[in-house]
C-alpha cells in the first residue's frame, strides 16, 4: 500500500477518534465535562477551517452563529426549567420576563413582553434543536447571499462579519425583556430527548458530543472531497477563473458559508448542554478571534488540524491558568505562539506534523513546502 498523505490523515483521524471515544475510561466526571467543552471548541475549529481554509472566507463573526445556536437551545431549555413554571401561570414563562415586564402585562408567553410570543414554539425542544441549526444557517444564507453576490472579498468580508456580530450582540443585550440581556439565559432545565435527560455530567452527554464531533469531522471531510469541495478550493484560489469556467461562484461560497455556520450553531447548542448557560459574551469579538487563533495554530487548511488545535490550546490553557505563576505569562506565550505560527507556520501544527510525517514515511525527497506561502497570498484585489 503506498503511503500517501491521505493514508496518514486517515490514520490520524482514527487515532483521534479512538482517543475521544475512549476518554470516559480515563477521565473523571469533571474532566469529562471539561473535555466536552473542548470538543465543542474543536467543532468550532472545524467550522473555521472549512470557512477560512477551504473557502478562503475569514469570518471574524463566527461567534454570531455559535451564539444563535446556543440561544435557540437555551430558550427551549429555559422553558423546561422549574424556575419558568413558578410564575403562577399554566404555561412556562422565563423568570426574567416577569421582572422585565411592564406593570400589568398579562402573565402569558404570548404578550408578557415585546416579542415574547416568539418563545412559544420553543416550548418544543425539538423545535429548539432544529432552530439551533436552522437559524444560524438562515442568517448565514442571508449574509452570504448579500456579500458573495456583491462579490465582496477578502478583508471586507472580515469587517462586515465583525460589524454584524457586534451589532447583534448589542441588540441581544439591549433586548433585555426578550433575552435577559447581559446576564444571558441561565437556570436552564435539562434537554430531554425521548425521555433521556442530558445531564452535563453524564457520560451519555459526553458521548453525544464526542460522536457529534466525529460525525461533523467525517462529514466535513467528505464534503471537501466531493467535486463541490474541490471547486470551492478552486474558487478560493481564483474566483474569476472559476467563474469563467462556468461555475456559479457565489453559490459555492454561500453553501459552504452556511455549512460552516450550521456547524458553529450546532457547536453552540452542545456548549449550552454542557455549560448550562447562554451568554451574549459568546458574541464577543475576542471569542470570534480566538476561534481564528485555534484554526491558525492548528492549521487553517486542515479540518483535523484546526480541531486538534482548538482542543490542545484549551487544554494547555486550562492547565496553565490553574498555575498562579503562569496566569499572566500564559497570555504572553499565547500571543507569541500566535505571532510565530503566522510568521513561520502558515499551515499550523497540521502542516508541521504532516510535513514531518511525510518525511518519516517517505524517503527524503522534495517536499511540498515551498507552496506554503502561496495559499496565504491574498489576491491583491482589495480596494
Amino acid at each position: 500500500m503506498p503511503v500517501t498523505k491521505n493514508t496518514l490523515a486517515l490514520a490520524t483521524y482514527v487515532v483521534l477518534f479512538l482517543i475521544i471515544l475512549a476518554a470516559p475510561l480515563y477521565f473523571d466526571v469533571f474532566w469529562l465535562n471539561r473535555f466536552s467543552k473542548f470538543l465543542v471548541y474543536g467543532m468550532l475549529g472545524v467550522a473555521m477551517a472549512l470557512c477560512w481554509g477551504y473557502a478562503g472566507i475569514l469570518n471574524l463573526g463566527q461567534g454570531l452563529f455559535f451564539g444563535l445556536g446556543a440561544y435557540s437551545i437555551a430558550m427551549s431549555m429555559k422553558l423546561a426549567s422549574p424556575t419558568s413554571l413558578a410564575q403562577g401561570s399554566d404555561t412556562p414563562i422565563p423568570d426574567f420576563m416577569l421582572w422585565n415586564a411592564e406593570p400589568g402585562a398579562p402573565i402569558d408567553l404570548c404578550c408578557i413582553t415585546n416579542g415574547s410570543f416568539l418563545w412559544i414554539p420553543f416550548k418544543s425542544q425539538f423545535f429548539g434543536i432544529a432552530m439551533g441549526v436552522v437559524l444560524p444557517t438562515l442568517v448565514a444564507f442571508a449574509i452570504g447571499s448579500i456579500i458573495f453576490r456583491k462579490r465582496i472579498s477578502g478583508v471586507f468580508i472580515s469587517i462586515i462579519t465583525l460589524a454584524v456580530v457586534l451589532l447583534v450582540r448589542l441588540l441581544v443585550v439591549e433586548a433585555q425583556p426578550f433575552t435577559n440581556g447581559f446576564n444571558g439565559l441561565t437556570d436552564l432545565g435539562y434537554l430531554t430527548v425521548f425521555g433521556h435527560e442530558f445531564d452535563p455530567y453524564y457520560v451519555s452527554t459526553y458521548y453525544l458530543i464526542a460522536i457529534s464531533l466525529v460525525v461533523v469531522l467525517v462529514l466535513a471531510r467528505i464534503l471537501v472531497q466531493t467535486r463541490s469541495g474541490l471547486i470551492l478550493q478552486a474558487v478560493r484560489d481564483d474566483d474569476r477563473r472559476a467563474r469563467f469556467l462556468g461555475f456559479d461562484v457565489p453559490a459555492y461560497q454561500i453553501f459552504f458559508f452556511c455549512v460552516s455556520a450550521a456547524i458553529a450553531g450546532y457547536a453552540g447548542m452542545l456548549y449550552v448542554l454542557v455549560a448550562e448557560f447562554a451568554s451574549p459574551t459568546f458574541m464577543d469579538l475576542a471569542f470570534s478571534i480566538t476561534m481564528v487563533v485555534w484554526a491558525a495554530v492548528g492549521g487553517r487548511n486542515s479540518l483535523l488540524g484546526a480541531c486538534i488545535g482548538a482542543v490542545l490550546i484549551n487544554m494547555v490553557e486550562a492547565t496553565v491558568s490553574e498555575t498562579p505563576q503562569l496566569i499572566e505569562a500564559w497570555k504572553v506565550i499565547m500571543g507569541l505562539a500566535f505571532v510565530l505560527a503566522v510568521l513561520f507556520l502558515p499551515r499550523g501544527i497540521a502542516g508541521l506534523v504532516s510535513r514531518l510525517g511525510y518525511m518519516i514515511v517517505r524517503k527524503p525527497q522534495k517536499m511540498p513546502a515551498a507552496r506554503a506561502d502561496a495559499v496565504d497570498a491574498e489576491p491583491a484585489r482589495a480596494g
Partner: protein
Amino acid sequence: MSTASLTIDGLTVDFSGFRAVDSVSTVVDAGELRVLLGANGAGKTTLMDLISGKTRATAGKVYIGDTEVTAMSEHAIARAGMGRKFQIPSVFRDLTVRQNLEVAASPSPGVFANLRFALPSSTTARIDEIIELVGLGDRVDTDAGTLSHGETQWLELGMLIAQRPKVILLDEPTAGMTEAETMKTAAIIKAMRGEHTLVVVEHDMAFVKEIANRITVMHLGKVLAEGSVESIEKNQAVRDAYLGSKGIV
C-alpha cells in the same frame, strides 16, 4: 457548410464618454480560428471582456450559435459555451494539475449537483487525453502554483479544452514565452482548432501566420478590416493605421 458560432452585432461600450469598443460587428464561423489584431488600446481585450460578460455592453448583442448571451452573467455565458483565457495566466495554484482539469471538466455548474466524488469515466479518459495534449503528463500531481510560466499557460489551455466550450477566447496566449514554448503553444492551439471556435488576440505576426484562418483588425475601438492573412497584409488602410507605422510586416 459553415455555420456562425459567434456573432457580434454592433457591440459598443461607453466608459463615460470614451467608446473603447464602438459598433463592432463580426461573425466567426464554427471551427474557425480568428485572430484579433490591433495596437495597444485598440479595444481588443475590452471586446473580449464584453463578449465574455466581464464588462457590460452599452449597446449591441452577442450570440453563441443562436443563443443570445449579451445580458447573461459570466458563469452563465461560460455555461452557454464560452471559454476564456486571460492575459495573465490564471489557474488554481493550490490544486494539482489533475484537480485543475477535473474542476474544469466538471459537467454541471451547481453546488448540489457536484456533491459527489468521481467524474464519469468518459470524462476521466478525456482528462487523460488533454494531459497528453498539453504535455503535462509528468506533472499531474504537482500543485499548479509550482509550474513554470509556460506550463501554467498550457494547463490553462487544457482547462479550456476540458470545459468543452463552443467558443474559446484567448488573450495573448504566447506572451512572455520562449521560442520553443511558443511553438508548443501553437501546436496545442492548432489541435484545438476545428472542434472549438477560437478567437485569439496576438501580436506575434509569425505566430499569427502560423495559426490564423482569418484576421480582424481593430483600430480605436472599431473594426478596420477583416479577411484572410494575405488580404490583411495587403490592405492599405491596415498598413497605414497599424502595420505600416509599426513596421511589423
